[in-house]
């Protein structure tokens, strides 16, 4: 049996998969499946997603994170994904995901901060000479404004690090998100529009993608693959956990939130 090649010229191999407009749930299912069932390293770039969608993390509470009434009124899909964080995505979002073996970089500890720091080396190269890029806590920023949000999932032998880049966004979309209870210190209570920035004000879209691929090529040997190569075999039994929330679940979240609010108000009056 041939042993799969995992390194070349001292660098780990990575499969580069380029998608355009793939639905975000499909992308998340792919990432989760590659994390759990593949032995290769993968870089997935999805240039925009077709439908505006809210994505919450594994423990995200809709009543705390979202303006649920608006989300239901405008029929915005809400997905719970297998990593953390909250984001609203659309065709102005560019996604870059790394799915890697722990031993691709033996000197890299597979914990959140080391992986985050490693990823920032790639984007530091992308933005060299273009903008004041840095990693602030878990965000990529230009100056002190966030343009990329990150989340991860780490198993015993592999990890996913995925980023949603704000190449552009609709101001009205930010109205679906509440100010989060847990926010990075550097946010300093700024509302969404004062906190984030558009990448399009700094770099053309195709230029960002090409520069990212070049930067990835300085850490890996790239092997472009067709989307068909990432499909699961028919025999695969893997069931991804990322899923679309049902309308009833969001309605229940509103009900629970209002019930808790009513109880808190009565308790306050009674005392």
């Amino acid at each position, binding site marked *: 049996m041939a042993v799969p090649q995992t390194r070349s010229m001292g660098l780990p191999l990575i499969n580069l998969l380029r998608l355009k407009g793939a639905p975000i749930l499909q992308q998340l299912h792919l990432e989760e499946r590659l994390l759990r069932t593949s032995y290769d390293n993968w870089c997935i770039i999805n240039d925009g997603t077709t439908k505006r969608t809210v994505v919450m993390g594994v423990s995200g509470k809709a009543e705390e994170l979202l303006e649920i009434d608006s989300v239901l009124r405008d029929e915005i899909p809400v997905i719970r994904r297998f*990593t953390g964080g909250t984001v609203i995505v659309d065709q102005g979002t560019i996604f870059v995901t790394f799915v890697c073996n722990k031993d691709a970089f033996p000197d890299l500890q597979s914990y959140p901060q080391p992986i985050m720091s490693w990823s920032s080396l790639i984007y530091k190269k992308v933005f060299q000479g273009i903008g004041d890029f840095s990693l602030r806590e878990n965000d990529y920023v230009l100056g002190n404004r966030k343009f990329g949000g990150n989340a991860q999932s780490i198993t015993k032998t592999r990890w996913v690090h995925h980023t949603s880049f704000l190449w552009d966004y609709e101001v009205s979309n930010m109205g679906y998100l509440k100010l989060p209870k847990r926010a990075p210190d550097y946010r300093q209570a700024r509302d969404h529009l004062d906190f984030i920035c558009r990448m399009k004000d700094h770099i053309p879209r195709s230029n960002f993608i090409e520069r990212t691929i070049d930067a990835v090529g300085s850490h890996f040997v790239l092997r472009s693959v067709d989307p068909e190569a990432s499909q699961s075999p028919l025999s695969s039994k893997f069931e991804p956990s990322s899923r679309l929330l049902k309308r009833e679940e969001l309605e229940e979240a509103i009900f629970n939130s209002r019930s808790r609010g009513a109880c808190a108000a009565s308790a306050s009056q009674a005392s």
Partner: protein
Amino acid sequence: MASRLLWATRAASFLRISVPYRGFATVIKDLKYADSHEWVKVEGNSATIGITDHAQDHLGDVVYVELPDEGAEVTQGAGFGAVESVKATSDINSPVSGKVIEVNTKLNDSPGLVNASPYENGWIIKVEIKNADELNCLMDPDQYCKFCEEEDAKH
């Protein structure tokens, strides 16, 4: 100097004292340890499992713990749940095979117990052990201490 610090660290961990320099995590005697940074305390046929001080320190603030159901089967080396720590979910792997007989439901409201008390109040599950021989694959406190030092020294 380095060997004295190492001795002091091992003595401190043996005596269950947290050392002030966070480069060396607390390690408790009488526990066994997996290379994925979980600990197990065996009492008769049952085992209590959690994540180590090294793990919680490197993960950051735990905001959620995904617990298995009571009655679920766990397998040595395989994931049975996860912790979420600010944007990242990390698998928790079982150091032993067996059946889950109790989960720490306090973690639902207080996931931070995993950070504050990883070896006591932050325990995650209790299992009925299937095969005591599996414990031979795990590290003792000294071995685990050395393992952590080597891991941290590489980075």
